[in-house]
């Protein structure tokens, strides 16, 4: 087992002999137009089944709801008034003064805009759109707790489920700090062996009962292809590439926006000192993570393992000591 917390190269940590650069997404929500093409392209490529119940979800234009076993990209829609925008701007500015995210030199061009170097007026209303996806964490809770080895770390540093190995135990579901991974159901409670049709026939819903999540299109990646969502994104809101480049681009974009006065911009997942060692998928958000349904301080359960072992060890040692003392004391 490799390192359990903190900055690391996950592929090296997983003892890959032939290492590739770590791959990841940078989702820039400031240019997302909420078209949901990523959701559709993802389902199309991965042949994931329809999972909506064909009723309005009562959540603005979002009728998907959340990431799940059959939804590996999810676009959130958040309607906000001017007061909330001002708060977001304030909290983003505070993040910068705390030194996080790291802000590079302001872009020269933004300042060259005539009459536009001052922050634009705060609008009275905005509609945030953001495409969420599996974070492919540096320290992945799902992977770390998987008892069968169905979840594995790829040579590109991503985390993928092997459908034919997963036994559907569900430990990973509790292990993910983001609530991303989920077991697929077909709406019935029947045991898996009794669900499928004739032997050899294609089940109506594939991979029922096993854990499912974004593979970062592992099957495309090994052929040097861009994942389906990033490939289809019309505005390049979803970018794909080497993780280091993605983080650099993300930092630059935040700096650029701050230079324009849009201090509500901040990064999510780019801090390798956070509870999951940073994520493979980084995001530029325009408000606090909770607004988008993201945990503000995600923490991989296994990060606590050393401490737990230390405490357990300490407790065991204490008990041994106590026992020893008891014996010693008994003799005296």
């Amino acid at each position, binding site marked *: 087992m490799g390192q359990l917390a903190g900055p690391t190269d996950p592929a090296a940590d997983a003892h890959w002999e032939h290492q590739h650069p770590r791959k990841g997404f940078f989702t820039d929500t400031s240019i997302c137009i909420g078209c949901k093409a990523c959701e559709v392209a993802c389902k199309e490529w991965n042949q994931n089944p329809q999972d909506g119940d064909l009723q309005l979800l*009562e959540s603005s234009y979002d*009728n*998907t709801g959340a990431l799940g076993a059959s939804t590996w990209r999810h676009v959130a829609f958040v*309607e906000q008034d001017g007061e909330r925008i001002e708060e977001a701007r304030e909290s983003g500015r505070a993040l910068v003064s705390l030194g996080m995210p790291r802000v590079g030199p302001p872009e020269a061009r933004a300042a060259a805009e005539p009459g536009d170097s001052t922050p634009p007026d705060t609008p009275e209303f905005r509609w945030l759109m953001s495409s969420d996806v599996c974070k492919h964490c540096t320290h992945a809770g799902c992977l770390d707790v998987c008892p069968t080895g169905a979840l594995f770390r790829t040579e590109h540093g991503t985390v993928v489920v092997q459908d034919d190995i997963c036994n559907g135990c569900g430990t990973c579901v509790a292990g993910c700090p983001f609530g991303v991974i989920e077991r697929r159901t077909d709406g019935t409670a029947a045991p898996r062996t009794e669900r499928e049709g004739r032997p050899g026939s294609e089940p109506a819903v594939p991979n029922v009962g096993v854990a499912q999540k974004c593979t970062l299109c592992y099957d495309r990646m090994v052929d040097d292809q861009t994942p389906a969502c990033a490939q289809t994104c019309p505005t390049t809101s979803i970018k794909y590439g080497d993780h280091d480049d993605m983080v650099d681009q993300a930092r630059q974009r935040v700096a650029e926006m701050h230079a324009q006065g849009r201090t509500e911009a901040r990064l999510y997942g780019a801090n390798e000192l956070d509870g999951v060692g940073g994520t493979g998928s980084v995001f530029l958000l325009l408000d606090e993570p909770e607004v988008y349904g993201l945990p503000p301080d995600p923490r991989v359960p296994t990060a606590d393992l050393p401490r737990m072992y230390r405490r357990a060890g300490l407790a065991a040692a204490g008990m041994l000591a106590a026992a020893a003392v008891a014996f010693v004391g008994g003799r005296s």
Partner: protein
Amino acid sequence: MANADCIVIQGSNMAECHPVGYQWVTEAKARGAKVIHVDPRFTRTSAVADKHVPIRAGSDIVLLGALINHVLAHNLWFEEYVVAYTNAATLVNDDYRDAEDLDGLFSGFDPESGQYDMSTWAYAEGDGGRVSGPEGDPEHGAESVPEAAGQQLGSGGPPMEHARMQRDETLQDPRTVFQILKRHYARYTPEMVQEVCGIAPEDFAYLARSITENSGRERTTCFAYAVGWTQHSLGAQFIRTASILQLLLGNMGRPGGGIMALRGHASIQGSTDIPTLFNLLPGYLPMPVAGTHDTFEDYLDAIASKKQKGYWAEADAYTVSLLKAWWGDAATADNDWAYDYLPRLTGAHGTFQTLTSMLDDEVEGYFLLGQNPAVGSSNGRMQRMAMSHLKWLVVRDLNLIESATWWKDSPEIASGELRTEDIETEVFFLPAATHVEKAGTFTQTQRLLQWRHQAVAPPGECQSELQFFHELGKRIRQRLAGSTDERDRPLLDLTWDYPTDAHGEPDAEVVLAEINGRHLQGPDAGRPLSSFTEMRADGSTSGGCWIYTGVYADGVNRAAARKPGQEQGPAALEWGWAWPANRRILYNRASADPQGRPWSERKKHVWWDEEQRTWVGDDVPDFPLHLAPGTRPDPDAGGAAALAGDDPFIMQADGKGWLYAPKGMVDGPLPSHYEPQESPVANALYTQQRNPSRVLMARQDNLTAPSAGDPGAGVYPYVFTTYRLTEHHTAGGMSRWLPYLAELQPEMFCEVSPELAEECGLEPYGWATVVSPRAAIEVRVLVTDRMTPLVVRGRTVHQIGLPYHWGVGDDAVVSGDAANDLLGLTLEPNVQIQDSKVGSCHIRPGRRPRGPALLDLVAEYQARAGVTVETGNTRLDGPGGAPGPDPDTDPTTHPTREN
């Protein structure tokens, strides 16, 4: 668009409806451009724009007119450009009277027919007369088809007798276009904008500042619109207003400028270039009219005079080449190149005229190809009832759409108006191949032809359109073989020998080659034409669509060119092929100053190279290559030879951009604001409430709600507007059958403001019923701050948003009531488009009644409002027409008219 410094998206929800094209707006924004969205609703486009300006649906001419006024009043127009390249300096004849003088009418209006005699709009002639068309004044003869005249003129605009116009380049003469323009828009002020559009003065100032600061030598502003501008009873004039503004700011023919007409489906542009329209032939040549264009000579004279400027003067070569492409050896000089094989128009035969003919049992059969009128067309009930009058109906589609199943599951079956056993229409459903199952071209918004390769063969009996029509033609010709009837000659003489593959699919590239055209005689016989300038009127060339000539030059399919953008120049000339002649920006001569130098280094595109004595640049120059900037033509010359070195608008009869249209727009030479057919407010500018030239369809099944001031107006107090969502495609034929798309937007809904929800007692995500004089539909309610109530003329106007993707039927994954059932039919007079972007309605909580009770509900509203067939359907308002707005109920009075 990526080159623009400011982009105004108005009349379009570009990010939602054109997400792929929106990448260029995103790119422009990344380069620092300002993006402003003017729309009744805050949409996904507004969400990524710098600013959203809410506007009352249908009031755009007031806003654009006020911008024109602002630009003129504050001397912000691009003087050198305007004087040299537009008709600002041209004098108009003395008899012209403006809408400002006649309270909303221009001179020449005939209240009986609702049509204008355009002769008083003409440019002035030296002797005090007028410059007319080549046949005197052919526009409005007794036997013409005025309803379709504007479209018939095609891209070249109306013809002119000659091109020797009187000009006053000081622009001081009161008869100059410039002075007329100034007077016409003088009352279109920021105050008027607030009054009529509901836009705050500071928002207007922001918009005015943004576009003027980003126009001129160094910078350019671009406008983008879609059906939010076109689908109004004066839609063509909305676009004209924007054109005037862009000409004044010098934004035409330049990178990052122009007006982008966003096309809503793959190859809708292609379907007007090689048209599915009743009044056009390929390449915007007009369809001949019975009685007016009886001879080939009559026809050619009506298109263009040999003495006018520009390339329309060569229309005879384009027409003869077209006839040679269609009828080959059967088209000879002796039979006028088979001109008489062409059908003749006897009136307007648009889709809505055909609809009423169907209802009158005058149409036996109907083909529906990729169209779902039962859901997607205005006044859905009329559409479905009309289909029930047919003997036969052929539906070719991907899915069993509502237009194929209305006879068993339409709302009229539910209401008892139709009974399946009584319907005699025989419906044939033919499965169609999808876009990945066939090869061919798509022509997109920017006139770019892009070749589409076949990825997989169509499954089962699915066929491409090409195969279907080829086969249909073959079978009809087999039936007619040996016929001696003259009327069968056009079919039997067609060139119809396309090679097919093993599956019977014709080779689409052969069709493309035919469209491109070829030399028929001499040493070059058989060689593809490389440019439309090679076309001849002597039968020595053929070509199916002159503007597409060059797409198959040298036998190479240039639509299939796929060189990545980063490997070539800024205009990316080797990606696809743009008509005409692979030009990416039309009229790009205007990107250089009159002396031929780029207006600025930043905006250089095409310029004159003095050493080489030729036009050069990033793009294909849209100008005679060796015509030097200072050239003055022989005054008696015509055609391309008559162009001066500073006449960039080479398809216009005088080579200039038209601020004022002396001809061609059937509802006025300058855009004026009229209220929509149904409006809760009275026209603040003129007594004339509605566009006097609009095409009326006054019928009992197409009633109009009373407008402001009329009794009963309060029964339908709210404005509704219809639109699309990203997740679905139009009437849903390509999306509601797909689970992945259906689950993203599963149910029909409306969008209302919290204020309206409060006023009407609507619960968020509960049910509501929307009632118009045509129908009542039920919807789920999205209460959202994205909808803003506007204060217009002293009263609050609530607007309701209704996406139109759902329809009533049993076959789709998701279904629901159709918004288009609410719409009435009143048509724009130039292009016969329906006014589907604005209507009047009422909204109430709860689901709609079922069965016949639904009809009772609609009738109860009609009775309460007192609507009759005449309501809203009188031509003239005020004196001489129906009573104008009641001054007592009208909170503002008409401002005093000056001039």
